[in-house]
């Protein structure tokens, strides 16, 4: 059943998908940093307020994923920021996250060698978002 993008239910299903992924578990072995996703507001897309997603990821496991204010996501060790439309493109496989970062469509803050070392894990994390059925605010 589809859930509202950026809702607590969405965060919970996203966490379940991450923890179901054997590929993520293998690729993210040794990862021990928090990741924040900042989804910037786009009022004309019926997404009026920016949202933060805080991901407590540890050694191939998602210990917690929660939605909150952008400031909480910005306090994480790695932060990826993009407007709502870009995140929707990533979650619907219209935009590859790696290419998006190289093109500056997704802005990354954090230690670059570390994130590059875990490229495969971050790609699988993106895959996990695509497996969560979502109701998009600009489509309702």
């Amino acid at each position: 059943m589809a859930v509202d993008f950026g809702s607590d239910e969405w965060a919970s299903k996203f966490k379940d998908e991450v923890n179901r992924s054997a590929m993520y578990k293998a690729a993210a072995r040794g990862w021990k940093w928090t990741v924040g996703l900042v989804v910037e507001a786009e009022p004309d897309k019926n997404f009026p307020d920016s949202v933060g997603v805080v991901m407590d990821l540890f050694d191939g496991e998602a210990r917690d994923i929660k939605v909150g204010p952008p400031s909480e996501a910005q306090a994480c060790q790695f932060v990826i920021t993009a407007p709502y439309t870009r995140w929707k493109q990533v979650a619907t496989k219209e935009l590859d996250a790696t290419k998006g970062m190289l093109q500056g469509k997704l802005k990354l803050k954090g230690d670059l060698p570390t994130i590059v070392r875990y490229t495969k894990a971050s790609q699988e994390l993106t895959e996990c978002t695509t497996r969560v059925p979502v109701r998009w605010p600009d489509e309702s």
Partner: protein
Amino acid sequence: MHDPRSGQVARRELDTAKTVDFADAEPSAFASMLGGLIEANVDSRAERRRDFDALAARVGIWVTDIDEGVTLDFQRGRLVVHNGLQPQRDITIRAEADTVMSLSNLRIGPFGLPVYYDEVGRGVAMKLLRRRLRIDGLLGNLATVNSVTRIFSVAG
């Protein structure tokens, strides 16, 4: 940033004290990312620093699936990153974004040579064989390619 008087992309005053500097007033996202990656790598690992301090070469990298590239001008202990491919390159690497990332994940083995027998290495070697990774100038510049690979490598 475009300078209408010159018809050229605006250039910056370069800071010679910096390990990595950018030639363009507005470095592309790819230029910023690659420059940042190399700087962090060189600053954190003594063996990468030794390679960096010894390397003098102009290296182009073109990412074929986003149509963007950079030129890395290594000047023995200093790097100037240019947006796009600039002339007089010693080597030019052309590959998709994923493959460029894989190059950074090549492990460095005995004698400072990249490891092509593990999973990442085999993937890179297959892409070379299938021409999905092209390195123009490879034959005359094998030592440079190996140095650049070591400087890029984030693998342990």
